[in-house]
C-alpha cells in the first residue's frame, strides 16, 4: 500500500522533469556523418564518376534493390549506363557501401525521403549522383589500383602510382 502511494508520488513528480521527446520537424536528433540514410553515388576528386559498374553492390544487397548496367567510355573506362536503387525496398543496411571497391556508393545522414507515390522512391542515376567525393575526399580508385588500358600497363599513366605488390609485407 505504502509502495503504491510512493509510486504515485514519484510519477507525479515526473511532471517537472525535462521532456525527452524531440519535437521532430522543428528540431531533430543529431545524425552522425556515418548514419545510414539516403544513398548517393559520389565522384572522385577529379570530378569523374567513381562507380566502375562492378556489380558488387547489387550482388551483396540483401533485398536486391540495386540494378545497374555496365558500359565503357571511349578510353575503355567502365561506368554504369543506368544505376537504379529502389528505396521502397532498401533496408539501409549499408552492405553496398562496404562492398564497393571504389567508395562510390555511400550512405548519407539524410532520412527525409517520404513520398506519396511509391514509384517516386525509385531513384535513377541522375538522382543518386552527387558532384562531390562524399565522405572520402582524396580517394581516387584509379590512382591506387590502376587499370591496364590500350598501350599502358597498370601504374604507367599520368598521376598514377604503381600498384601495390600484394604478395609483399613491405610497405
Amino acid at each position, binding site marked *: 500500500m505504502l509502495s503504491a502511494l510512493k*509510486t504515485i508520488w*514519484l510519477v*507525479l513528480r*515526473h*511532471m517537472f*522533469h525535462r*521532456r*525527452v*521527446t524531440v519535437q521532430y520537424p522543428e528540431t531533430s536528433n543529431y545524425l552522425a556523418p556515418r548514419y545510414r540514410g539516403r544513398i548517393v553515388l559520389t565522384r572522385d576528386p577529379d570530378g569523374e564518376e567513381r562507380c566502375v559498374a562492378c556489380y558488387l553492390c547489387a550482388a551483396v544487397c540483401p533485398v536486391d534493390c540495386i540494378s545497374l548496367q555496365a558500359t565503357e567510355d571511349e578510353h575503355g573506362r567502365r561506368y554504369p549506363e543506368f544505376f537504379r536503387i529502389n528505396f521502397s525496398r532498401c533496408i539501409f543496411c549499408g552492405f553496398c557501401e562496404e562492398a564497393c571497391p571504389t567508395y562510390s556508393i555511400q550512405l548519407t545522414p539524410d532520412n527525409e525521403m517520404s513520398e506519396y507515390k511509391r514509384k517516386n522512391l525509385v531513384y535513377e542515376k541522375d538522382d543518386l549522383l552527387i558532384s562531390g567525393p562524399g565522405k572520402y575526399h582524396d580517394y581516387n580508385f584509379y590512382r591506387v589500383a590502376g587499370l591496364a588500358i590500350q598501350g599502358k600497363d597498370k601504374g604507367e599513366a599520368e598521376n598514377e602510382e604503381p600498384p601495390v605488390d600484394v604478395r609483399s609485407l613491405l610497405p
Partner: protein
Amino acid sequence: MREIVFHLLVVVCVLGGTLSMAGALIWLERRLLALWQDRYGPNRVGPFGLFQPVADAIKIFTKEDWIPPFADRAVFVAAPAVIVVTVLMSFAVVPFAPGVWVADLNVGLLFLFGMSSLGAYSLILAGWASNNKYSLIGGLRAAAQTISYEVFMGLSLMGVVMLAGSFSLRAIVEAQQGVWFCVTQFPALVVFLIAGLAETHRLPFDMPEAESELVAGFHSEYSGMKFGMFFVGEYLAITLLSALATVLFFGGWLGPVLPPLVWFVLKTGALICGIILLRASLPRLRFDQLMSLGWKILLPVALLNIVVTGAIALLGK
C-alpha cells in the same frame, strides 16, 4: 413555461456537456499521461493539440465497422449502447449547482446503483455476443468484478446516507454545509473510490480488458464507432465517478467566492486528474488479488464504517 424551458435547457446542457467532456477527456488523459511520462502527448492538431479528439472522432467514424460473422448480431450491436445510456441516465440525478439538475429523485443514490448495475450488462453482453473466448473471459471478469464491487460501493455510501439522512443527492450536498464528508467519512471515501474505479474498470482495475492477457477483453471484436461507444462510455463513467465523489464527499457545489457550478467543475476535474494519475502509476492487479482485496479488506472496512457511523449517529441523537 419558463421552468419547462429552463429544465429542457439543463437537460440539453447536461447531455452536451457530458458528451463533450468525454471527448475532452480523451485529450486530457493523453496529455496528462504524457506529462507524467516525460513526453508531450498529442500537441499537433490545433492549439495544444486540443482538436485531437476531433481528429480521433473523424478517424473512428470512417473506420470499417465490422461485425464478425460468428457474433450474435442483435446483442453485439446493442451492447455498446447500453453502457453509454446507463451512464448518461445516471447523470440525470447529479446536482451540479443549486437548482441545476435534471431530476431530484428522493432515491437518487439507489437510482445510481441501479444504473451502474445495468451498465455491467453492457460488458457481459458484449463479451457473450462476440462469441470469442477472450471476450467471454473479459465479460465474465467484468461480471464478477462489477457485482462484487457494487456491494462495497453501496455499503460504503451508507455512512454518508446516515449522516445526511437522505438518499437524495441534493440533500447529501446540503448536509455538507459544515464539514465535508471526506473528513467524517474518510474510510468510506477510500472504499468508494476503489470500488468506483473497479466499477468503471479503469486501470489499475481493468481486468476485463487486460490487453496483455485477453487481447482487449470484452471489446476485442469491436471496431469503428461501436468500439468508440465503449470508449465514450468509459470516459463518461470516469466523469460520473468523479462527479459522484464530488457530490458525496467533497461538498458538491459548496465553496467560497466562486460560483457553485465552477466549484463543482473544479472539484470534478481535480478528481478526474487523480484517476488518470492512478492509471499512470499503478500496474494492473491480478484477478484473484482484486477479489481478495474486495472481499477481505474493503468489505470489512465498509461494514465497520457503517457500524461506527451508525453508533455515533445514534448517540448524537
